[in-house]
């Protein structure tokens, strides 16, 4: 069930500050290109700034120090507020950085020290509404369908939302129990959403496990991929660059040791929607993917607008005019 309250709060037209996550900007620029393309097609105004830094989540994840996260978030918000009242991000990591920071500020000591440090920079901490780009796509789904030039041609897609989309229950369009908004997006774009048993499980990244305990990460990715393959999906849709990285790259290792039978392309929601809106296939950064995306691209078809005869209202008005 889509959280209507949250949906209502999302401004359809912005303007937005587009948060430049470093993993997207420096490792998956195709997601950034696709995101900007979508905003341009929809005529939505957005800003970026070189005064922005990293979100701070990797440092909190590694060193478990609240202050580095709260101070970076507080400083970034101060920068972003100069441009817009709402933040957009296509990364679950950046998304949860802001909400985690607000959560950590409940600790009085953390809050006091954060204010003290930000005070030295002439700033203070005040949260801002941060919206996941996937939520924005859902908000503008009607416009996207109207402007679409391609369709998914029935392609069977499995959605992996990613754990950190769900951590904060009041934020976001769906809860972990039975999320459905991305499936709805797939359906409206002409695809067939596929359900699978391991849907609400981690991709394997595990915040630190992909680098610290690799075998554990691979084992979890394997469960996920096999569950998706068993359900008969032909492609995986993600909303986070880290999930994309892990689900895509780990497949090579898993195939080498024959733990999965075949490869399955992994696509970020921005890449999918940009293609549907007419972006060139070589302008969404598939160079950075390890699994061949051709089986996915082959299924994207031109959208044929079928003529179903004049509707009676149109006939009536043209007669009147004629």
């Amino acid at each position, binding site marked *: 069930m889509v959280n209507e309250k949250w949906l209502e709060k999302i401004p359809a037209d912005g303007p937005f500050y587009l948060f430049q996550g470093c993993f997207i900007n420096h490792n998956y620029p195709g997601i950034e290109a696709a995101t900007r393309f979508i905003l341009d097609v929809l005529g939505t105004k957005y800003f970026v700034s070189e005064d922005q830094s*990293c979100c701070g989540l990797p*440092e909190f994840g590694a060193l478990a120090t*609240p*202050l580095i996260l709260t101070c970076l978030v507080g400083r970034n918000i101060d920068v972003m507020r100069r441009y817009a009242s709402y933040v957009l991000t296509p990364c679950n990591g950046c998304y949860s950085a802001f909400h985690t920071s607000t959560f950590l500020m409940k*600790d009085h000591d953390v809050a006091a020290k954060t204010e003290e440090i930000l005070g030295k920079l002439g700033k203070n901490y005040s949260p801002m509404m941060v919206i996941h780009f996937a939520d924005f796509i859902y908000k503008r789904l009607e416009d996207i369908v109207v402007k679409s030039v391609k369709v998914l041609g029935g392609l069977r897609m499995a959605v992996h939302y990613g*754990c950190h989309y769900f951590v904060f229950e009041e934020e976001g369009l769906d809860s972990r129990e039975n999320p459905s908004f991305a499936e709805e997006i797939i359906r409206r774009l002409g695809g067939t959403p596929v359900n699978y048993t391991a849907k609400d499980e*981690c991709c394997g990244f595990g915040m630190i496990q992909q680098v*610290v305990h690799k075998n554990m990460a691979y084992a*979890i990715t394997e469960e996920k991929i096999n569950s998706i393959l068993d359900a008969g999906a032909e492609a995986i849709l993600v909303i986070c660059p880290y999930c994309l990285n892990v689900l895509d790259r780990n497949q090579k290792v898993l195939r080498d040791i024959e733990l999965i039978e075949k490869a399955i392309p992994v696509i970020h929601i921005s890449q999918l929607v940009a293609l549907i809106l007419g972006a060139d296939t070589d302008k969404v950064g598939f160079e950075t993917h390890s699994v061949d995306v051709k089986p996915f691209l082959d299924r994207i078809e031109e959208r044929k607008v079928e003529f179903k005869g004049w509707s009676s209202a149109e006939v009536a008005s043209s007669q009147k005019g004629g």
Partner: protein
Amino acid sequence: MNKVSVLLTSKWSWKLLEEAERWGIQRPEECLSCGACVGACPAARTSSYNFRKIIRDVILGNEEKVLSSREIWYCFYCFYCTSKCPSRVEIPYFIMRLRRMAMERGYGGDILRILVYTSSNLIEHGVSVLPSDYDRMNPISAEENMVKLREKLGLPPVMRVSEKAMEELRTIFEETGFRKEVEGIRSGKWPFKGISEKY
């Protein structure tokens, strides 16, 4: 609070549970030992990790045993447990708290030295992931390829954080003690004790 925890309250030898509450965490002694979290947990499926064992040792006051163990480094921070827990115990935050306490007692250095590169990047460039991280086997060509790819995609050059912002960030790194900690980890001076593989 359940009965067993009440009985054991007097044995808590550390301030951990109060600390947990300060972080706004649902107090872990609300745990009903129902096991719903273990059934869902990816760490439990792939290692010896069992949150109920950890919480039991916390309650019994076996602090050194918990903090010196590899167990607390297995969590995926995926919050699957929290979504299944009838008491909504926020286990991953609690585990983060334990990791922090372990570091403060000198444990976890080997793991932190694997993870510290993002922090070093942040201190030097204001971002955690660099174009050169795209291929750590060959960072120079990775950097070149990323710059070219952005150009091909019609994007502005790679994100650089302005000098004005770096100046502010340096104040944050100093005041939070972050720069000192990262240097300590990199030089091997902190934390320095190995963790125990047995639990």
